[in-house]
């Protein structure tokens, strides 16, 4: 199979809708930082869910990028490729005839060069992934073709020739006179002395004279090179004089024509004279433009886009690692249906391990906290054999929702084919992610809010997807306890019976005991009454929590007395 997509997509991603769980899991906040507002890249993250094969394909590609330090090379490729596209569109839109063939070879040079560089980078890499290995094959064949070689060679030669031209424009007596020199052939520039003395009116005759001289000069190239330093001094710039007045001014001369990428009329006139003086460059360019009007292969265009999926995540991951946050490639393990997945084909096989993670944290919170220099609490968890659901209870602000989110994020990043925010993790294949978070800001109460919750819940339960991961946060808070328990039990039972894994955050401890596939978890306060945000796998226990909070503020009977005594009251 030839190379098609580095993301293992059958066809280019187009018009995706954001998965419903993004908001609940704060994945949109994470992606904002990863994609930095690039809609195109965001679409790749929104294209969800993927099949197990595709997940593995991407995990392997990403592993190759990390292990072989391919980031820089790939980034350079995408940057070059974008520049090429930019130039192509300029070529198409320009109305200046002289410019069109020049843009043509200019773009061709960047295109061929970018592919050659990419080929070289992949050749030197020890690749394991199907994706990059097939790309390497493709590049080898493509760049080896003679047609490609000709394009590369010709465009490069033309570009060098053009870049080697120096232009001097002398504006005097209402006319602009243009001199062109080829750095390789002539040393005319070195002979042109433009006197800075304002009394001197002969500067243009000087130029004339020197131009004449220059035609006789330049026989001995070697000598010219030796003289380069002197030449530079001869060609003192006005800035040198200005520096004598103020040597700390960092301002540079502003070329007013640089404001626009377009050729200004002034420049067009200059370029016309340049073309007149250097007809061979322009003739050659015109020929190339006619002989080879189209040369781009779409597979590379798609590659340049798709690579940004990995690159943007890599940049983000590196930044977070520097700030002390852990990431890892998730290991494969068995799901409730006995299927193995997902990322575990590379690295050590962990197929029999339980679904688990160490040092798992909420990446969205980590993003926010890292900006304030604050750490995040991480958690460990494990689903042992036959355990499907966590039912999480505990005091408010105990980190329940954060933990639930981090679980959801773990599954998301595993499924999208990238690293996960944890020290280590083992994750099986899940078909999809289903979430339901109560809308706390909702002004509606009582029946209205309950109704809204049920309406949202209904499709999750009805359009059931086999083997999904479910995250439910505080359902039925406005219903009567009795009702809420019964409804909650029903929801849980439904997902359990469908063999889903998931987490259910609730204030109803009664929900812990309804099924042996449920694990009751509790967010804990430590012995000092400080919330440690650790999720401990143990029976729910409120004892001590209230007292701890009272003592935290020294409001117990004895301590309050002591405080008042110390205050002299």
């Amino acid at each position, binding site marked *: 199979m030839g190379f098609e997509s580095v993301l293992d997509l059958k066809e280019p991603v187009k018009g995706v809708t954001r998965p419903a769980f993004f908001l609940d899991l704060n994945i949109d906040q994470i992606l904002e930082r990863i994609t930095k507002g690039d809609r195109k890249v965001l679409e790749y993250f929104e294209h969800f869910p993927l099949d197990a094969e595709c997940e593995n394909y991407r995990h392997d590609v990403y592993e190759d990028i990390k292990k072989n330090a391919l980031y820089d090379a790939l980034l350079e490729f995408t940057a070059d490729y974008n520049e090429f596209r930019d130039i192509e569109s300029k070529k198409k839109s320009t109305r200046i005839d002289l410019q069109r063939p020049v843009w043509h070879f200019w773009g061709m040079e960047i295109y061929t060069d970018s592919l050659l560089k990419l080929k070289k980078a992949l050749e030197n890499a020890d690749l394991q992934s199907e994706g990059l290995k097939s790309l390497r094959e493709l590049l080898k064949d493509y760049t080896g073709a003679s047609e490609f070689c000709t394009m590369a060679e010709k465009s490069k030669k033309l570009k060098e020739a053009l*870049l080697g031209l120096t232009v001097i424009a*002398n504006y005097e007596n*209402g006319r602009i006179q243009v001199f062109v020199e080829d750095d390789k052939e002539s040393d005319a520039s070195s002979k042109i002395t433009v006197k*800075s003395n304002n009394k001197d009116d002969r500067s243009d005759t000087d130029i004339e004279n020197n131009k004449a001289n220059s035609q006789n000069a330049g026989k001995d190239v070697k000598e010219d090179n030796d003289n380069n330093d002197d030449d530079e001094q001869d060609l003192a710039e006005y800035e040198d004089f200005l520096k004598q*007045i103020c040597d700390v001014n960092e301002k540079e001369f502003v070329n007013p024509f640089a404001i626009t990428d377009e050729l200004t009329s*002034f420049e067009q*006139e200059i370029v016309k004279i340049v073309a007149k003086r250097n007809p061979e460059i322009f003739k050659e360019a015109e020929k190339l433009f006619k002989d080879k009007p189209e040369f781009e292969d779409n597979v590379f265009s798609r590659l340049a886009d798709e690579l940004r999926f990995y690159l943007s995540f890599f940049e983000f991951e590196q930044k977070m690692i520097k700030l002390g946050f852990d990431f890892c490639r998730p290991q494969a393990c068995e799901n409730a249906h006995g299927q193995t997945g997902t990322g575990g084909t590379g690295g050590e096989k962990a197929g029999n391990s339980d679904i688990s993670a160490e040092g798992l944290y909420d990446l969205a919170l980590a993003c926010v906290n890292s900006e304030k220099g604050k750490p995040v609490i991480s958690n460990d968890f494990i689903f042992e054999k036959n355990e499907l659901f966590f039912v999480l209870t505990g005091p408010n602000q105990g980190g329940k929702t954060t933990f639930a989110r981090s679980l959801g994020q773990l599954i998301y990043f595993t499924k999208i084919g990238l690293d996960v925010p944890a020290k280590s993790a083992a994750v099986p294949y899940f078909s999809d992610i289903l979430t339901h978070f109560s809308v706390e800001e909702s002004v509606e109460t009582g029946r209205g809010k309950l109704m809204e919750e049920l309406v949202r819940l209904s499709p999750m339960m009805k359009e059931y997807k086999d083997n999904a991961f479910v995250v439910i946060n505080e359902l039925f808070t406005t219903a009567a306890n009795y009702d809420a328990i019964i409804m909650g039990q029903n929801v849980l039972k439904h997902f359990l019976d469908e063999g889903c894994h998931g987490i259910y955050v609730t204030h109803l401890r009664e929900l812990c005991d309804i099924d042996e596939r449920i694990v009751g978890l509790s967010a804990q306060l430590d012995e000092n009454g400080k919330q440690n945000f650790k999720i401990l796998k143990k029976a729910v226990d409120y004892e001590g929590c209230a007292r701890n909070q009272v003592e935290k503020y020294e409001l117990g009977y004895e301590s309050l007395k002591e405080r008042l005594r110390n205050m002299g009251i």
Partner: protein
Amino acid sequence: MNAFLLYKDREFVGATRYFDAKSIVQDLGLKTLYMNAGKDVVFENGVAKQIKEQDPFISDTMSKVMVSPLVTKEEILYRQKILKDCLENEDFIKNLYKEATRIVVEWDKLGRKTTGYSGRSDNAGWAVTQIHLTTLFAEGLKKIKKLLKGSAILFSSEGLKNLAKRLNEEFSDDYEHKIDKLLNDVAFYVKESEDKDGALYVYTPKLTLKGKIGAGLKLRDVKLKNVTSSMIRYRNPKSTISKIVEFKNSLTPDSFSNKMTPIIEKQIVELEQNTVNYIMTFTMEFLESFSGFFDQLLFQTAFYRGAVNLTHHMKRIGIDYCYPTICENERLAFSELKEFVMCMEQRVNAVGNTCNIQNKMLVIITGANQGGKSTFLRSVGIAQVMMQAGLQVAAESFSSGIFTSLFTHFTRREDSAMNSGRLDEELGRMNSIINHLDKASLVLLNESFATTTEIDGSIIAYDIIKALNEAGVKIITVTHLLSFARKMYAETEEKEKNNEHSDITFFCAERKENGVRTYKMIQSVPELTSFGLDLYSDVIGKPTIYSEVS
């Protein structure tokens, strides 16, 4: 660039002021002094002919400098010497002040407040302003340099000599020429035309750019090779000569006209503008380094202008004046010291006082009302402030210590009505003075604690003044509080009996045996009479003292 005319090593920025300078100004009547410092006196054959209109800037300057005291002998001598040079070269200081004024005024006109010298450099107007400013600064500096050079031989003060030297270094002839060249190069941008030998000449630019060809044939790395302005003779574009010249120019190979199309014409104007903007950014540092200087120079020369004027006023009134000399703080000696403010207000040469107080830190002045006590106190205060501003004082001679802080605590007549609120306020003022005392403080008290009964006032005054005296604060106090004065005197007598030194001395308004007042203060035992008895005397007749009042 620094002016350094007020201090040897710094400009007048954030100078420490007297604490509660407002009270000092009010109590000593310094406003009159500031006002007169702003008025020049024109003499003819040594006779005052005319008092000029007030220059409010000078007055304002004096009001800032005089309440920011010099605190070392060196600082005082530094100013005294410059003042001496100024008095001997009055034209010089006048011209220098005039030039500094001109520059700052012109600068304001160029929109200093709105554009500033470091405003945005991306609009056309900016460069024009920048050129005008650079011209203003450069021409101003040349003139100042010339002024300093012209009088340099006559200077004996370190301050003026160094100013001339610094200016020659920081605005060297070489630098001056470079600025001139730069201004000349960009002259085409601001100068339209000029008459020369009857013909009209216009400034035209000559620009040379060097660059490389880049992507899409766009010019890149464009560098400015040269810029000049040249004057060419103006000819009517429709004239034959004009057309011939144009035709000749059009033969230039590989060239095109700047008026080829309206767009090109516009782009070249833009090029000129960018070029000049770029060039003028190089004078920003020059402007910046001298902008503070002109403000300081104006301010500092204004001070010496004011100082010269004050001397003129003394001369006009016929007061003897001198450069005060510095001695230890226990000493206060002067002869024919006049209350200068009163002299100026009343345009009379008042009665002068002479004394030589040695080894005393507390001077208690008592005596009849209208006897010149307050005048005496004020004259000392004014002279002290003038001395510590580096000025001449209204006395034949004056010698005093240097006090890093000076406080006045005057109970003004309108305040003297008995009122507990007022006493509280007075004590509050005293408290804040005490909060701000330092090692070398001089406190002038005038009728302090008169807002309560004599007995209470005396106790308060005794406690405070005694404590301050023992802490080494120099105090000169005018008081009606007889109990206080008597108690102090008794203690002094006691000490002297025991051959112990007392640093307290007592002054009284002099009264001849026939009862006539001389308005002079003399060292004497505190009078046993008070303002009330005086009044009684005046209205009813001299009362009899039957026994000692405790």
